[in-house]
């Protein structure tokens, strides 16, 4: 296998309702290390299902998935492996409302053996990257939707994962905020070298990505 490949899938399928609903049908593709990659397609095409499978949150009905050449599910079962290798950004952010901005970003680091000072420093650096260092003590409820998404991005990056998966990160944002977020992802991809995979149904955003695939009814329509 090519050493430059981070994620590879072979004939990946996912069925629901005893096979009556086909979410993904024999999807094979690969993502290179450091790529800014998009999974596109209309609603119900299987984009989020594919993202969840790549992130190890769901199991395929059939097919194979590899992370740096290793079987993905076995690899993610190793203690701390998910945290150190995969960061998630969800469409509806899923921030803890009772924790402030800095604490939300620190959440994944609870698992890592680092000094409290080093953890805080890293979280503050990321908040600075996403332009929220001045709001680190703010309550989540006081933030705008765009700001909340930035906190979620900082949280996904704080453990310095090799792969960041973002499920329609601009879906809840207006066009200006959506563009800002995509520019931010691009900047992070360029500066940190992390591979970023974004699920989107917006066609107009093509120019941002190194490469993309388009799904339709669970199959790759174009790549």
């Amino acid at each position, binding site marked *: 296998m090519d050493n430059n490949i981070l994620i590879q899938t072979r004939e990946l399928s996912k069925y629901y309702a005893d096979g009556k609903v086909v979410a993904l049908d024999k999807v094979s593709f690969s993502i290179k290390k450091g790529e800014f990659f998009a999974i596109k397609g209309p609603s119900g095409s299987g984009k989020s299902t594919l993202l*969840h499978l790549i*992130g190890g*949150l*769901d199991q395929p009905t059939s097919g194979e998935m590899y992370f740096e050449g290793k079987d993905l599910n076995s690899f993610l079962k190793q*203690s*701390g492996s*998910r*945290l*150190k290798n*995969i*960061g*998630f950004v*969800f469409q*509806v952010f*899923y921030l*803890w409302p*009772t*924790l402030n901005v800095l*604490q939300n970003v*620190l*959440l*994944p*680091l*609870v*698992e890592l053996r680092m000094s*409290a000072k080093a*953890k805080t420093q890293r979280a503050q650096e990321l908040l600075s990257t996403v332009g929220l260092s001045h709001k680190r003590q703010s309550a989540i409820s006081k933030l705008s939707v765009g700001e909340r998404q930035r906190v979620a991005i900082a*949280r*996904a990056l704080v*453990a310095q994962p090799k792969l960041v998966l973002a*499920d329609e990160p601009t879906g809840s944002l207006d066009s200006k905020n959506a563009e800002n977020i995509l520019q931010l992802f691009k900047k992070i991809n360029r500066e940190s070298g992390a591979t970023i995979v974004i699920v989107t149904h917006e066609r107009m955003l093509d120019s941002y990505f190194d490469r993309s695939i388009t799904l339709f009814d669970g199959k790759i329509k174009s790549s």
Partner: protein
Amino acid sequence: MNILTITFNNIWNRKIRSLLTVLGVGISIAAFVAIIGLSEGLKASFISNFRSRGTDLVVVEKGILDILSSKVDLSYKDKFKAMPEVEAAAPILLDLYSFKFKQFIVLYGWEPDSYLFKELKVQGRLPKGDQEVILGALAAKRLNKTTGEQLNIKGKQYRVAGIFQSKSIIEDGAVIMSLESLQKLKDAQGKVSLYNIKLSIPSRSKTSYAQISESIERGEDEIARAFPELEVKNIQSFISNNTPMYMIFNFTWALSIVAFIIVILGIVNTMAASVLERTQEIGILLAIGWRNLSIVGMVLCESMLLGLAGGLVGLGLGYLMMNIFVLSPQLAGLMAMTYDPALIAKVMMISLGLGVVSGVYPALKAISIEPMKVLRYG
């Protein structure tokens, strides 16, 4: 930030529920503190009562249910005294009399030349004949009597010859009269309830505790062998094996177990509700890479903190309840208020243990959350 910060955050953000749980745990723990504290306090009072007199052994009728129903012949006194192991033998007749409604006072009948009087500090004088009594300071206060006044016991008038102070709270709350007087009053001529035996242990103050215990054990064996028809016990074993006391201990522990079950159910309910409420948060923690062990740690930490906080509240409430009980007319004069560090440590350990046990089910529920379901259905 660590798991403890998150735990405090969880508790703080569910203030009312957390407070109610802590109160629920606290009330159950308070019941435990009060009933165990009272029974242990009662036991300590009885032990101190015998020890303050310098008593090594107690002799009672064999197979009796309680000390008040024990009847031993007074004639044993000389037989005990004839034994080389025995330094002194004091016959005691006991009774319990209610001067006012439910205000019980212990009545002691002692021989006028008993060694037991040596340990008392008497203001006034010792009782003479069968018309006089002396009152413990606490009994005098409760009965509102001073030296020279008359006291009516079971329809008979007695003159208060003096007020004494004793190291034992039971004696301090008691009335002492001559053995003969109480025998007449109780219609128990020639009988006593028990004997207090002081053994001949040379240079006792310079002898080690282990050697004294050994001498007491030897004396106990000798007297038991010489009088197999009687029950001979050292103080500790006499109090612990005393049937009513034994029943009280068992009863209090049975009540405590019920209280603990209530505590466990209370914390399980709170924690299970808290986990259910936080399904989304826990699911996301699992999705961002938290290990199951950390989720279990977070839930257990929260239930342990609730248990510990409940334990502290319970200690405060329990000792408050004990104070009220000890000062009540029913118990005043039977025991003193004590703060036993061993009981405090036991309560905190039990509270922590109950917190851990209560957290297991909610913790298992938490790690069974599937992040995919949270992401799919919110």
